[in-house]
């Protein structure tokens, strides 16, 4: 045990002390969030303005087109010759112009002449604005009162009420969907990232021939377990850092970027606008999720899944002797279930009680990913307690089996040089006696 700890310590320190560790741990999320923030920022505060001149000889628009966005302005001018407009468009003084000839009716086509290329989003905005204006004018002409029309057009709200869970609002379903996908993707990445990290570590030890010296001091199994635990500890540390970073960012960055959002939460949605109410709903739904359960399950499935895949990856790492190239063919059968788990997960968030979702969340090679997507939708709504218990038992049962299996292969493989073994040979190593 003490020796496993020595190996663990070396694995842990040699990774954490590297400069790249800090870079990846802090840099990666900052980079990802930075890119998202930048995309968000620029799409909100787009600087390009489109100016459209309207010569409405027929008086069709009655001198207004309600601008639905600040980016598009409509300037009504009368008595400007179309040749002059064309000149202005060519010199890019304006982006485009509309000429409505005398005698045009509300049903006629509108021609917009542009001097520059107009993006598809802006085209949509302009089309919507013009159509809305024309629709309004057409409705005004109808012999029906505005109030009646408004009433007829009003949407009916559909509320879903779950008799087992009063908190199960539509908003909450959406939010738990999001959290489920997020957790599933996180575990998916963890399995691939740290699993291959274990594989590379084992391969490095074998190729550099240090393994033979180490196994003359300790058992191969101790070396393998030390490595798996050490890299697992690095993963846990990374998660702690990310959680701290995440909380920090939430507390510091959100008030800076979206001052109105935090204000809204503080005063409690006042229903001034639809988006504010939505925001408050999201916040409420977020706080109604059973965090202790989800976080516990996250760590259970993170550790269980990691141990299963880490030992499989370790078995592969010790079977190849020429580095990456050789490993490629052998890794596929191991990475495949991870990818299948991911696919099932995407199905399971939509329909958490379907047969496929139940199977995926019980089968130990996919359960870490799939079950996370189901658990976030509520226990016992989406997952019954016995399913959860069975899944965890299966997970840890197969973790013991894969570790045993990998330990056997490791013992033989770590000192075996020469040609790449086939799967048949690997099984032979696993099942022969010492």
């Amino acid at each position, binding site marked *: 045990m003490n*020796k496993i700890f020595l*190996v663990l310590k070396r694995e842990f320190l040699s990774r954490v002390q590297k400069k790249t560790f800090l870079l990846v741990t802090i840099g990666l999320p900052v980079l990802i969030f930075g890119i998202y923030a930048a995309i968000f920022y620029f799409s909100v505060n787009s600087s390009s303005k489109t100016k459209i001149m309207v010569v409405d000889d027929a008086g069709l628009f009655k001198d207004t087109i309600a601008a639905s966005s600040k980016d598009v302005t409509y300037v009504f001018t009368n008595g400007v010759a179309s040749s002059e407009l064309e000149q202005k468009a060519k010199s890019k003084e304006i982006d485009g112009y509309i000429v409505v000839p005398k005698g045009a009716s509300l049903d006629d086509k509108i021609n917009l002449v542009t001097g520059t290329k107009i993006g598809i989003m802006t085209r949509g905005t302009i089309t919507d604005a013009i159509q809305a204006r024309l629709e309004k004018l057409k409705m005004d002409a109808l012999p029906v009162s505005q109030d009646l029309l408004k009433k007829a057009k009003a949407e009916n709200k559909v509320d879903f009420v779950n008799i087992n869970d009063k908190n199960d609002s539509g908003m909450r379903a959406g939010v738990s969907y999001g959290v489920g996908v997020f957790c599933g993707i996180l575990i998916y990445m963890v399995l691939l990232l740290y699993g291959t990290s274990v594989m590379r570590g084992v391969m490095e030890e074998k190729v550099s021939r*240090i393994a033979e*010296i180490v196994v*003359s001091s300790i058992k191969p199994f101790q070396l393998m377990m030390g490595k798996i635990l050490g890299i697992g500890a690095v993963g846990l540390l990374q998660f702690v850092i990310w959680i701290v970073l995440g909380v920090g960012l939430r507390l510091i960055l959100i008030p800076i970027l979206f001052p109105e959002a935090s204000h809204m939460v503080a005063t409690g949605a006042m229903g001034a606008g639809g988006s504010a109410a939505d925001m408050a709903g999201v916040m409420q739904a977020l706080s109604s999720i059973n965090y202790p359960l989800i976080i516990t399950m996250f760590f259970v499935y993170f550790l269980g899944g990691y141990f299963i895949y880490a030992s499989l990856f370790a078995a592969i790492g010790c079977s190849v002797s020429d580095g990456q190239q050789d490993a490629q063919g052998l890794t596929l059968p191991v990475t495949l279930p991870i990818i299948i788990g991911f696919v099932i997960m995407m199905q399971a968030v939509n329909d958490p009680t379907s047969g496929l979702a139940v199977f995926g969340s019980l089968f130990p090679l996919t359960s870490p990913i799939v079950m996370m997507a189901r658990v976030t939708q509520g226990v016992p709504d989406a997952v019954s307690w016995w399913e959860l218990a069975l899944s965890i038992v299966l997970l840890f049962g197969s973790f013991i089996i894969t570790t045993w299996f990998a330990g056997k292969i490791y013992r033989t493989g770590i000192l075996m040089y020469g040609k790449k073994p086939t799967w048949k040979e690997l099984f032979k190593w696993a099942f022969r006696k010492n």
Partner: protein
Amino acid sequence: MAILELSHLKKYYATQKAVDDVSFSIEPGQIFGLLGPNGAGKTTLLRMITGIFYPDEGTITFDGKKFDPENDIQRIGYMPEERGLYKKMKIGDQAMFLARLKGLSQPEAMAKIKYWFERLEMQSWWDKKVEDLSKGMSQKLQFVITVLHEPKLIILDEPFSGLDPVNANLIKDQIFELAQKGSTIIFSTHRMEQVEEICDQIALINLGKKVLDGKVEDIRQQYKEHLYEIKLDREIAAGATSSVFETVNQAGNKMIVRINEGRTGNDILRYFLDQNIEVQHFGEILPSLNEIFIRLVHGTNAVTRSFHNI
């Protein structure tokens, strides 16, 4: 009492017998040479002695008791032929890690590392990484790591490969000193001249089987061809023969003769003395281990075994 005793050790792989019924014993304080061509089964044998492999059959007795890999490997130091170190790890940390795996406590390990680094003039290496070392330097580090925990049994697989003569001598002196202090050393190689120089006793392995073992001197005696080298004060007629010897080779006043059965070296001397020919040099030619090695191994399919499948 022998420190290590192997009896009827066997290790079979799927396609071949890597070690096939090997027995020998090693006395404490000895330098024991394990010889054999490539693929003879030396490494497999050593891996069984270091507890990496379990033998299929046979027993290993270490220090009077049945070999118990889990505890006994703490008292064994093994330097494999394929040297390996963590490339990105600092030399000092590396030595510390491997010493602690052998069961030394932190302060104990530190004291031992300092002692050996000083001895082999490696103090300034502490913060260097292995990838910055030359091959000879990492060889020295490897040796230090092997003997750091003062093992009773030290196993060195080709310890001098890649070392320049100065460093090879440095290591050789350490080996002698360790043996004098009571450590037993197993020294595996196929370089015979080193064995003759260093080892007290040897075992020759070929095709997984022990071909011969014993003291170096005894073996050379056993395989001698009764040849003598003689230098006389004058040239004598070519092809001189007598009832005592027959000439094998003659060049000027030097000659090599084979003594006839039942005769001794004194009979040859007497033959020349009787003729009043002065003998300036007279000595028996013992075969070198290299010659014995080649004679025993030659003709077997030793080479093909180096490419084994398992």
